[in-house]
């Protein structure tokens, strides 16, 4: 295992662990405001200090991890559940009208700046975690559809697929039995990377107030709240900022590491 993969997996596990732990225990309730205790720097009681309402930042990071991970995970889920079958279908019917339609539809979605459209969607349908999930998820669909199609096309040329066709198997069955298992690696890697992008997108939407609404904790909004306080209490901005940075870094390192691990050509090169 490469060092990047080890560090990435460790960072990812830390934040996933924090999110899971928040269901059982958090140091302080984040819905109780204690204004007298506001803007404390990190100390023995509040490990990462408190914000302008006197809430414990560490507890908020834990609760925010929950939101971030849930939003990103569901958004990736939408992308995979809709995108992968679309890609498989396009590859099976390569060159057909429906393939063209699917792929040009993808191009259309790709052509829009994803965050701007996500803002549009949440602005029109209201700011909430669910709408954020849908908005981010829509942009994951073409990513997975295109990747699936690109990975499936060369597999369709392989002899084992030809042999399955000679056996009279339908295209749908070949896609599920022969194509899908051979592209899973790729999907895991892309899923990891899209997951990190999802966390970034969720943070961005929350930052402008279009993500999860208060009192639900969110890293992006913590950052937004801290914006005016940077000069007097820099830790209120630094902590959520670094959290986002480390999570995304961890996921990207893990994605890269997994790709190297799965790609036999790179593996041989290193041996």
């Amino acid at each position, binding site marked *: 295992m490469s060092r990047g993969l080890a560090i990435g997996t460790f960072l990812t596990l830390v934040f996933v662990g924090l999110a899971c732990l928040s269901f059982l225990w958090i140091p302080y309730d984040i819905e109780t405001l204690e204004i007298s205790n506001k803007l404390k720097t990190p100390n023995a009681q509040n490990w990462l200090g408190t914000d302008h309402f006197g809430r414990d930042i560490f507890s908020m990071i834990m609760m925010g991890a929950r939101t971030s991970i849930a939003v990103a995970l569901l958004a990736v889920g939408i992308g995979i559940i809709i995108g992968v079958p679309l890609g498989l279908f396009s590859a099976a019917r390569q060159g057909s009208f429906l393939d063209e339609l699917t792929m040009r539809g993808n191009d259309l979605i790709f052509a829009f700046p994803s965050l701007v459209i996500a803002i549009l969607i949440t602005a029109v349908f209201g700011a909430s975690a669910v709408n954020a999930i849908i908005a981010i998820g829509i942009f994951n669909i073409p990513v997975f559809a295109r990747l699936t199609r690109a990975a499936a096309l060369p597999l369709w040329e392989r002899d*084992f697929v030809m042999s399955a066709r000679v*056996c009279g198997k*339908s295209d749908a069955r070949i896609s599920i039995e022969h194509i899908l298992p051979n592209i899973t690696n790729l999907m895991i890697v892309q899923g990891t990377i899209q997951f990190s992008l999802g966390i970034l997108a969720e943070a961005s939407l929350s930052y402008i107030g279009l993500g999860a609404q208060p009192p639900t904790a969110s890293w992006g909004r913590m950052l937004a709240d801290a914006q005016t306080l940077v000069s007097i209490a820099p830790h209120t901005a630094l902590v959520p900022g670094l959290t986002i940075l480390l999570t995304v870094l961890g996921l990207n390192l893990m994605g890269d590491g997994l790709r190297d691990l799965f790609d036999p050509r790179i593996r041989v090169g290193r041996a």
Partner: protein
Amino acid sequence: MSLLNIRDLSLSIAGVEILHNVSVDMQPGEIVAITGESGSGKSLTALAAMALLPRGAVAKGQIFLDKVDILATSELELCAIRGRKIGMVFQEPMTALNPVKTIGSQVAETILIHERISKTEANKRAADMLRRVGLEVSPLRYPHELSGGQRQRVVIAMAIVLRPKLLIADEPTTALDVTTQARILELLKDLVVSFDMGLLIITHDLAVVAEIADKIVVMQNGQIVETAKTEVLLYNMKHPYTRALFNASTHRVVMPDVITSGTLLSVDSVVRTYSLPRNGILGSRPNFNALDNVSFNISHGERVGLVGESGCGKSTLTRAILGVEDVQSGWIKLDGEPVFSGKRPNIDVRRKMQVVFQDPYSSFNPRHRVDRLIAEPLHVLENAPVGKLKDLAILKALDDVGLMASDAKKFIHEFSGGQRQRIAIARALIIEPELIIFDEAVSALDVSVRAQVLDLIAELCHKRPLAYLFISHDLSVVRTVTDRVMIMRAGKIVEHGETEKVFTNPQNAYTKTLIAAAPRLPEITYAIEPV
């Protein structure tokens, strides 16, 4: 004085010794052939002679090229030697050339690296050399505009433009058609004489070896088992492995007499055309006739061969017969049913036909176990066996092709190429089809493995009447396993008839060239009679 002298070369990669005490000695103007099966270390020996070793390889011993010990020379000095004193020709002419540079400039590049001359002069010399290797096209052409044989000539021109003393050719004709192969071998022989070079040729094809080499080196598992002058070796083989190798490459099988009854497959005036890219933006779209009015029949129990060079339409015909692609006109029927039935596969046809492909590495889904792989065709059966019966069917299929019951739970990467081809045959046999298409099914195998697979096919024919279409470019293989043969060229069947008759008395001019171009092993005698 010897030109190349490899003394006691041992080579290990990551602690595993791959070459053991290899010694080769060659004189100027001599053609030495290193032969052996895949994994015997023949290519590695050739790479070692250029000091082009894989990373992590540790070499012991000495390699003298013109009195210079290559292994004791620095990389910088080696760069001056490579290209100037040693030239190399690779197997795959498709990938050995840079697609975005003209062939003339690629040859000129070799000159410019080693000599301080003007570009114009280098280009002029490159053009001369391209003419010398028999290329009659402009040096301003790009590699993709040339055929495989022409590209190989460019690669040879690059290798010899500086008149190296030693030319190393690694399987130089393996990727080429037989008629092209014959011409390239002729060119190499001619160049050796006129440039007084030494030629070290690496090839698995013993017929090529016997035709071209002055001296033969036979390798097995990283060791040299026998070295001798060609005329001595051919008539006086000492090592049992050499004999086994030569035996296997002239292997003939005994087929049962053919019993035919009624037409099984009928191909009736089939035409398949592909449209090519437009000539310019407003130009017309030219058509390419891959299959041009092809008609033939295969009867129940009949074994038919189909021979042709690359691009003759063999693959298109295979795909059409398998019913995975439609044809523009004509009919292909199996037992009266059309093989192509649009998007919905016709189960009746599927039940009667199976296929074995060339490449044992891409024929199987790497994520399935052997039992699942060979049971795949079972689902077309009306009452497919399930549970115990299915396991029994799998065991029987494995047993039929000489594999063990314990192999059923293994993954495909655990098998060698020959074993994989057996598994492919097991998969084809499991539903007892009427017709099997062997699409270059033994072409990617080593000679000894190929002999075993041919034996297996013969054995299966003895067990039950089996009709097959055996598609191959290898004339000797087709000759031994088929009753009837068809010769294909440019989408047309130019000759067909009983195999022996066609081979001994070809009528068509193209068939004659094809048979004449195929390298043949001379009659071989043995020092000790083979057992």
